[in-house]
């Protein structure tokens, strides 16, 4: 129980840092701390493979991508410029009410925790082998769909960036685009600066 309390405090403080810290880089690093504490929480929940993946993919790859973009764009907090003065405090109050309501409802249930011996026997520590069995058995369709989704994401990201690379190397000719690239460039033009104004 002590482990859970320490982890919960670390995660809630880190989450509040994500929301409240002024500097975007500080907020991102605060989220890294929260995600690492979440990985430790996965270990306490007998999900060891997920804990490793959480550290590698989330705290590693995704947050590095976030920090890279933050430093590339040099995002600054522009200071208070409010049109609705009470909105911030209304949002805080709504969040606190929602959090306490969900927490109370969750605690109200009061089912006992499962027997840890049976859980350990069934989950086998959340090993990669067991997860692989479920992934290629019951969730095979989800596996295929995620593959398609990742391919779509790669193509979309490349299409968005490629338009920028062309316009950086001189004015793009209207009809000079090679065949097969026009669809992606047309999709990106709605967001880009090279489109007709």
């Amino acid at each position, binding site marked *: *129980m002590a482990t859970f309390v320490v982890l919960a405090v670390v995660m*809630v403080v880190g*989450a509040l840092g*994500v*929301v409240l810290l002024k500097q*975007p880089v500080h*907020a991102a690093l605060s*989220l890294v701390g929260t995600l690492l504490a979440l990985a430790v929480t996965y270990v306490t*929940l*007998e*999900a060891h493979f*997920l804990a490793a*993946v959480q550290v590698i*993919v*989330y705290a590693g*790859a*995704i947050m590095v991508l*976030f920090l890279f*973009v*933050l430093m*590339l*764009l040099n*995002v600054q907090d*522009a200071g208070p410029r409010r049109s609705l003065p009470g*909105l911030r405090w209304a*949002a*805080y109050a*709504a*969040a606190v009410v*929602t*959090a306490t309501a*969900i927490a109370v409802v*969750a605690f109200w*249930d*009061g*089912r*006992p*925790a*499962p027997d840890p011996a*049976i*859980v350990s*026997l*069934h*989950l086998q520590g959340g090993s990669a082998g*067991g*997860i692989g069995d*479920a992934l290629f058995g*019951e*969730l095979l369709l989800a*596996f295929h769909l*995620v593959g398609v989704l*990742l391919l*779509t994401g790669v193509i*979309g990201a490349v299409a*968005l960036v490629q338009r*920028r690379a062309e316009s950086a190397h001189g004015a793009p000719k209207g009809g000079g685009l090679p065949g097969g690239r026009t669809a992606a460039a047309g999709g*990106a033009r709605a*967001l*880009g*600066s090279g489109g007709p104004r």
Partner: protein
Amino acid sequence: MNVPTDAYVALSGVLFAIGAMGVLVRRSAIMVFLSVELMLNAANLAIVAYARHWAGFDALAGLTGQTVVFVVLAVAAAEVAVGLAILIAIFRDRASTDVDGLAEVRL
């Protein structure tokens, strides 16, 4: 010693609410995105907690729950890549990611 599932779910709810608060109060689109990541992870924590709970009754249910979290991680990775690319495109056009003035992405 054996922490009940309700405690994990309550922690997940609190984290989700804090993330929702971040989406509401932050003005930079990147900060909104960061808060959405927090909400995704809160949901993942709830799924893993319930997976442990149901593993007390059925081995396949527990492992399937953990695998769902694995799939959600892959989806989140794709979402971050495309979302950050869109944000960079918007930033190069407007030199700002303030969500108050983002009318171009409207259909």
